[in-house]
């Protein structure tokens, strides 16, 4: 059993459902506070005349849960204040700006920054001749172009508004995957829906989770086969007034969703998405290693079973196999025994999706 999922094993009566447990909040906060280093350089051939060359590079730590269009005001302020002269600043149209990675791949506006960082870092690590330094935590080098965006490949316009629409679409898709409908998201008041996006924009954990907790599954110990907590006898006082009027209940538990919203990103390859039931048919929790060995078996071959215990070896370990690949979630190497339901509730991105980037091991 994963130590990371311990909260689920607490006795059911220990905590009223509306009290967010320590582990859940901790991991949600760690995911939220994660940042990645970016180096942003204006394409030297597109620098307007009279730009202050030598300063056209900007470094920043960007939140993993944020999006490129939300970084634009800061980048723009730097360029306008320091690099471009006034005439150039006036002639540039921000809606024509777009990003490329230094390996020539386009950066999509609607991918979370953490996902962009992890997938590109993995790609850089397997490129022929990749040096050790390429695999270390170096900034992701982005090239900012100031004109002629390849609109058909970027798929979205660079505005924060279209990014917000795409984000809401992803939230609803995640909601549909979990429950078979989007009632939780569409049931939010407009001000709350906007609050989610504002929380990301301001990188404010409390603002975001004040709303997100109404639509994200809880990790409380509710399993279909467990007795579950006493119905609504749990005291009502102490629940914040903003809490869902119907009250959180077993139906909101991470282990009761139809499926966990998960996408697996292979290096330079396809994105794998399928239904991920939180509990397998044999009643055991669906673990990361089970998921990867059933969906990406060539990279995560099923492990041979451990030999039967004996007197000399009462706790036998399965024979070790050479590892071909490893899973990164929020940039963190994730233990294979992690449970998908718990990962989905605690390490998903702000859009509700659990993104698993697959890296390739070195010999």
């Amino acid at each position, binding site marked *: 059993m994963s130590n990371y999922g311990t909260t689920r094993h607490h006795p059911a009566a220990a905590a009223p459902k509306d009290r967010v447990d320590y582990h859940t909040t901790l991991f949600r906060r760690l995911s939220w506070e994660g940042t990645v280093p970016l180096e942003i350089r204006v394409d030297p051939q597109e620098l307007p005349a009279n730009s202050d060359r030598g300063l056209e590079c900007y470094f920043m730590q960007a939140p993993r849960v944020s999006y490129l269009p939300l970084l634009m005001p800061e980048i723009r302020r730097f360029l306008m204040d320091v690099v471009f002269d006034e005439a150039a600043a006036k002639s540039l149209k921000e809606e024509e700006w777009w990003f490329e990675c230094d390996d020539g791949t386009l950066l999509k506006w609607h991918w979370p920054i953490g996902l962009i960082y992890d997938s590109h870092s993995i790609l850089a690590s397997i490129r022929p001749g990749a040096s050790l330094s390429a695999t270390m935590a170096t900034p992701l080098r982005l090239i900012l172009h100031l004109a002629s965006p390849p609109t058909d490949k970027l*798929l979205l316009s660079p505005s924060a508004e279209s990014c917000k629409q795409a984000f809401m679409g992803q939230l*609803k898709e995640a909601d549909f*995957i979990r429950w078979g409908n989007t009632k939780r998201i*569409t049931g939010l008041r407009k001000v709350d829906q906007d609050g989610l996006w504002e929380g990301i924009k301001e990188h404010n954990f409390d603002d975001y989770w004040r709303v997100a907790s109404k639509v994200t599954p809880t990790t409380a110990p509710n399993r279909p086969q467990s007795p579950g907590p006493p119905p609504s006898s749990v005291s009502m006082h102490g629940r914040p007034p903003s809490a869902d009027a119907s009250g959180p209940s077993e139906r909101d538990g991470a282990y009761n969703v139809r499926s966990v919203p998960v996408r697996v990103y292979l290096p330079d390859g396809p*994105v794998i998405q399928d239904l991920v039931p939180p509990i397998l048919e044999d009643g055991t929790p669906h673990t990361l290693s089970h998921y990867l060995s059933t969906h990406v078996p060539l990279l995560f071959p099923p492990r041979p079973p451990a030999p039967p215990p004996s007197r000399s070896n009462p706790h036998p370990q399965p024979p070790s196999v050479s590892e071909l690949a490893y899973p990164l979630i929020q940039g963190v190497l994730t233990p294979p025994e992690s449970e998908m339901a718990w990962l989905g509730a605690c390490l998903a991105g702000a859009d509700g999706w659990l993104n698993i980037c697959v890296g390739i091991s070195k010999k």
Partner: protein
Amino acid sequence: MSETVTPEATARPLPSWATPDTPEINEDALKALETYKKRDPSKVVVRFKAVGNAPIMKQNFYKITASNRFQAVIQFLRKELGWKAGDPLFTYINLAFSPAPDDTVSNLFKSFCTDGHLIVNYSTTAAWG
């Protein structure tokens, strides 16, 4: 394999998974990646349903290659409807949400198919935005 410790490695200890003993990548892993990169030639049935004032199509069912991105479905639909660039068109799955344009038809079908079809609703105004 030399045991020399480079300045880079001493500067900052790395977790074991990030420290390559040799810079070589496992050939089996690369072969596996190539296999997964092959495009799935199978097709799935997409059913288009107009919402609101959107014009209906002569034919509602189309077989679409599963490895296509949803963006290709949108472009196909625009062409069938004779939509010009800039004409508004909103697309939804199961009357519920707009998928990301880079979702593949295959992934959407696996997660959301109804009676063997992927139902794509289209509208000229934002309906479930």
